[in-house]
């Protein structure tokens, strides 16, 4: 046995297919590719990869990574298995309903593919700190929420430490909806990030509240009437739990009654659930395509065996097969990866007021009326009056009392496209 196949559980010829790629370069392989044992050793014994989400994409991602030769895989998911997952999340069975996805998926992969270690975490991505994310070489996301994607994207962008090349973690993100999907590669601070493309997202459909209240015409209007207006009116502070069949049942009956009153057809249980949970249709085949694309990029990046996606791939399969591969450009005013950053050296005894004066006078930046904060701490806000008043006493304080050496200050002002970040050094 060769070095690359050193881990236990391997057998001769196990990686016959993958090794055809790793044993020699192709026409589009970067010259830095080290064919042979070295790259296999990195992939199979050293590379540590994080998978976020063990759902439709996550199940596929875990299987593909394991077969490709990644042996140290971590997976995070906060959800438990629902019966509606079983049409595509192929690591789960009827008996697993109610169990945590991350744990069941990890066990399944380890049973099926010997020698692969999958470490599950049943919880939120927000539970983990920078040190946790720092341990991985790569991160793949198969998430269904914009919010979670924004969080991990910002976290990985923030993680980039100018002095430490290891701190730059490629982020590969996939998403699907029905027969459509997309995969992208984000190299934090190098390529466009998730936040840069936020305006490409379809905004969720919302109906005017007065239409819902007075002139419903669509079944969706009746369902929104039940969930947005009637639920809080009747149930007060009790929160609507969209996973509770009794709650959905209640909404369904209220919506049906309203539909009947207005002679509207088409309110069904499924539509009610779809509208209130904002359900996106999902099938195994689209997830397979997108997950494969994500894992293929992870494999190429981890091994340098071929050029990787620059940086966005989208696929529409409703009418024939249409796909589009393009480079999404960074946004200069991106709130996460764009904007200016400055190192400032100030005296230890400088007051906040003096720092602000310096910012206003500094020729190359010329900030009008800056507001300053550091993390969750408000240093000085120009408005609204209550907050101005609350932060005014800080003007006379020394910056060094509020921000440690090397600490960050976020500056916003109407003259800045988004924000400016200051790194303070005391001299």
């Amino acid at each position, binding site marked *: 046995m060769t070095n690359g196949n050193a881990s236990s559980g391997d057998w001769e010829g196990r990686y016959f297919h993958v090794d055809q790629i790793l044993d020699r370069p192709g026409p589009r392989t970067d010259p*830095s590719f080290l064919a042979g044992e070295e790259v296999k050793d990195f992939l199979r014994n050293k590379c540590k990869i994080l998978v976020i989400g063990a759902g439709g994409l996550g199940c596929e991602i875990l299987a593909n990574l394991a077969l490709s030769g990644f042996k140290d895989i971590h997976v995070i998911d906060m959800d438990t298995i629902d019966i509606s997952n079983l049409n595509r999340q192929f690591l789960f069975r009827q008996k697993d309903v109610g169990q945590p996805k991350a744990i069941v998926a990890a066990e399944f992969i380890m049973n099926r593919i010997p020698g692969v270690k999958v470490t599950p975490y049943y919880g939120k991505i927000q539970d983990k700190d920078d040190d946790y994310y720092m341990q991985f*070489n790569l991160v793949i996301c198969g998430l269904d929420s*914009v*919010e979670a994607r*924004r*969080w991990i994207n*910002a976290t990985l*962008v923030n993680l980039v*430490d*100018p002095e430490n*090349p290891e701190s*730059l973690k490629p982020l590969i993100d996939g998403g699907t909806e029905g027969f459509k999907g997309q995969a992208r590669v984000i*190299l934090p*601070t*190098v390529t466009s990030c998730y*936040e840069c493309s*936020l305006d490409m*997202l379809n*905004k969720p459909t*919302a*109906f*005017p*509240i*007065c239409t819902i*209240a*007075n002139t419903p015409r669509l079944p969706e209007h009746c369902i929104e009437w039940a969930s*947005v*207006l009637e639920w*809080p009116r009747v149930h007060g502070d009790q929160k609507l739990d969209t996973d509770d069949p009794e709650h959905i049942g209640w909404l369904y009956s209220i919506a049906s009654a309203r539909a009947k009153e207005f002679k509207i057809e088409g309110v069904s249980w499924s539509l009610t659930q779809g509208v209130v949970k904002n359900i996106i249709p999902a099938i195994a085949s689209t997830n397979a395509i997108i997950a494969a694309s994500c894992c293929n990029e992870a494999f*190429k*990046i981890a091994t*340098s065996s071929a050029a990787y996606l620059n940086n966005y791939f989208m696929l529409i399969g409703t009418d024939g097969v249409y796909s589009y591969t393009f480079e999404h450009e960074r946004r200069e005013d991106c*709130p*996460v990866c764009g904007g200016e*950053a*400055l*190192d400032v050296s100030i005296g230890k005894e400088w007051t906040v007021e003096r720092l602000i004066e310096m910012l206003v006078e500094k020729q190359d930046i010329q900030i009008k*009326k800056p*507001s300053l*904060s*550091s*993390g*969750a701490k*408000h240093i000085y*806000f*120009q*408005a*609204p009056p*209550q*907050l101005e008043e609350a932060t005014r006493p800080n003007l006379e304080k020394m910056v060094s009392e509020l921000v440690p050496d090397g600490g*960050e*200050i*976020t500056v*916003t*002002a*109407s003259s800045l496209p*988004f*924000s400016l*970040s200051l*790194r303070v050094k005391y001299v």
Partner: protein
Amino acid sequence: MIKIWSMKKNEDAAAKKKPKTSAAQIRVQKDLTELDLPSTMKTHFPDPADLLNFTLTITPDEGMYRGGAFVFSFVINTNYPHEPPKVKCTQTIYHPNVDLEGNVCLNILREDWKPVLNLNSVMVGLQYLFLEPNADDPLNKEAAEELRKNREQFIYNVKNSMRGGNIKGVHCEHAPQSPYSSHALELWHVVAATWVAHSLEGAK
């Protein structure tokens, strides 16, 4: 692994590190500290350290709601500005575009929300509802009906509601800015005008 680091342009990469504040947090800081509100609108933060939960009080100085003080709660989630702020009226008020639960019919709070809009746009939009209540997009149907059919009666109801009166069996909260404000005088003018209108109609 590919050598990504070499692709980082040497630039000022050294200073690109950002503070540990979420994009939503920074955006809210930007929106709030750049608010340009007229004297008729005031924000209040129950916890000044928490920028995501606050109230806005609108005290219109013209129009039929002049003299009232209307309080709206703002709740901003961490997905802002991808999602709009959640805004509700905290009082029971008599207004065609605000229902008795405090839901507000303002397009930019739902169907027309875009991330380029900001808190200032929402606040200005809310104030506009008091200057120009809109009978065509009603949430409180009775109020809208009244506004359309009998403007004088509507104005009378508004004034009455702001004093804490009952409108069609619904008790409205006392909403004057100050019970002894100079607007009281105007109120009586309106009441008198309504009376005149009514008696004229009766005489026909």
